[in-house]
């Protein structure tokens, strides 16, 4: 156990150095033709995966650690993205198609002045604060109501999915002033840096790497605390926790809000790297995909979701080009395969293989602990 976590920590630190230091350096200092060169495209692609990894961790904090399968994490991811998107839209200034000082879609909708909800988003700090507050508050209110009513299991999953779908439909409406089905795009600047330049994208990539590392360390620390142990105890036997004097609703609420903020942070970093945010990010399929990443990587571990997000998305990048029609079938098939044959995901594979080897290829040890079967006892005859 201790050895495993040490190996994990070393591996994560090595990967962190590769992503945060080595890859950006190779991008800058090697020639474009060299085999060592990391292209702008690669930086951008991996930056996207790093954001997805944060979304995956948020799913796992709830599903793998607390036993709450939330199908609403894409909503929080998208909300974070929208908050960042609003700031980026303001930074376009009057460089849009209509050359007006307000975003193009507002001009198109007939606005000549900036609506009041848009005004504070000229400030980067405000956008970031809102990216924490809005998903956090929404998760807080929804979680408070759901956990107080003891909604769990599949009902919780359905409700979170319904919430996400409702938000998706809401964001499709032009009257929300969030760009309708086109969302936000054509971003130009972030904090004065041109988004089209590779140095800006490289900076965002490094920021995302650092953010993911911090989220990883936070979650890792959380699992070692008594809080983290109660989280898993709730997953395994909620009644026992309840009858040990803990208000499990408060614990679940805390995790739900924390997971929402982590997902939102992923969305904040995602939008400037991808260059677009629209309501399709909230479609139910997005949340389901994140669940598959976690299942593939290994739920109930912090490193599993990161691995899952990378591998499944790398597969997706390849498969959507090679076999665009078959991707969803492939995704579903992967989920079924992992659920049936790799319940602990890729992270659990070494342990699974060694158990398999012990069972089939090593001589059986003679003194396995056996329990004698209970013998019949004198009981009051129960009426049948």
């Amino acid at each position, binding site marked *: 156990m201790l050895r495993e976590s040490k190996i994990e920590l070393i591996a994560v630190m090595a990967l962190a150095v590769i992503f945060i230091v080595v890859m950006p350096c190779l991008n800058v200092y090697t020639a474009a033709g060299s085999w060592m060169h990391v292209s702008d495209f690669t930086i951008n692609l991996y930056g996207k995966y790093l954001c997805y990894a944060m979304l995956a961790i948020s799913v796992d904090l709830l599903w793998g650690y607390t036993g709450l399968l939330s199908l609403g994490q894409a909503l929080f991811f998208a909300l974070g993205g929208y908050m960042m998107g609003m700031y980026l839209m303001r930074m376009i200034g009057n460089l849009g198609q209509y050359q007006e000082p307000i975003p193009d879609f507002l001009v198109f909708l007939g606005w000549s002045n900036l609506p009041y909800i848009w005004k504070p988003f000229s400030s980067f700090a405000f956008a970031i604060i809102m990216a924490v507050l809005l998903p956090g508050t929404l998760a807080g209110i929804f979680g408070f109501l759901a956990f107080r009513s003891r909604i769990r299991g599949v009902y919780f999953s359905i409700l979170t999915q319904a919430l996400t779908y409702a938000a998706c439909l809401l964001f499709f409406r032009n009257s929300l002033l969030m760009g309708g089905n086109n969302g936000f795009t054509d971003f130009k600047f972030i904090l004065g840096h041109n988004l089209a330049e590779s140095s800006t994208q490289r900076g965002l990539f490094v920021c995302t790497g650092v953010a993911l590392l911090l989220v990883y360390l936070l979650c890792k620390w959380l699992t070692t605390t008594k809080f983290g142990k109660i989280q898993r105890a709730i997953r395994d036997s909620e009644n026992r926790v309840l009858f040990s004097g803990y*208000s499990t609703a408060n614990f679940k609420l805390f995790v739900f809000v924390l997971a929402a903020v982590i997902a939102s942070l992923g969305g904040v970093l995602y939008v400037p790297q991808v260059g677009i945010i629209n309501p399709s990010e909230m479609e139910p399929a997005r949340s389901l995909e994140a669940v598959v990443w976690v299942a593939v990587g290994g739920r109930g571990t912090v490193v599993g979701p990161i691995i899952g997000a990378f591998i499944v998305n790398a597969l997706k990048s390849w498969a959507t080009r090679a076999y665009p029609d078959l991707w969803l079938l492939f995704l579903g098939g992967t989920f079924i395969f992992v659920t049936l044959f790799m319940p602990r995901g890729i992270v659990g594979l070494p342990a699974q293989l060694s158990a398999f080897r012990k069972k089939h290829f090593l001589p059986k040890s003679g003194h396995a602990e056996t329990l004698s079967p209970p013998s019949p006892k004198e009981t009051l005859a129960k009426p049948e």
Partner: protein
Amino acid sequence: MTAAPIKPEFILMLEEVNKTFEGFKAISNLTFYMDVGELRVVIGPNGAGKSTMLDLITGRTKPDSGKIEFGKDTDLTKLNEPAINRLGIGRKFQTPSVYVDHTIFENIWLSLGDSSHSVWGTLFSRVTPQRRDRIYEILKIIALDGKAETKAGALSHGQKQWLEIGMLLAQNPKLLLVDEPAAGMTDEETHKTGDLLLSLEGKHSIVVIEHDMTFVRQIARKVTVLHQGTVLCEGSVDQVQNDERVKEVYLGRKKKEKLSHE
């Protein structure tokens, strides 16, 4: 001025309690008193309302009417499970409920009554030397001190039952509610469980729900028989076993059914 009648030292008091589930009367006019330090065994056929009674005491369900009080005038009907638990009422479930993914040490640690139970408190709570000593003390009582670092999921059924009893002891409850502790145990394990419960008598007040009459004989001082959600009779094991009504409830129902069919 007349002196108020002296109230006896009850740890638990249920008076005229009623509970109906969708038309089914699970508990009807149940009145039940228990003294401080008493070990009481509750028996009764399936569906007599034994587990529902525990649900009512622990706040899992609320009564339709009636009084449920703990100690001196603490009304339990207004409180939820964690609050009732923190008053000092511990409950063991019929099927062993332990944290299978945690070590046995951690199982007891999470159950300790004196440590923090709030979200913020648990983020920074640590195992102090005193807590460690207390945990090992409990592990010794339930004979699992050699397995502190084993995962609870790897224990046998009987050991899981003991671990759960240990988790209750860690809460240091005034009142222990134990639902069928010997279910699925071997004779030897059952006997050990009986000894364990007897050793706790006096230090805690204990309610044990049980079917196994050998086990009941081993531990019982006073037995309460529940039938159709109400107390049928109360007394020593011999008194209860020789009671005509009890015999009828347990053995006679088949005969009656036969007669009514004819």
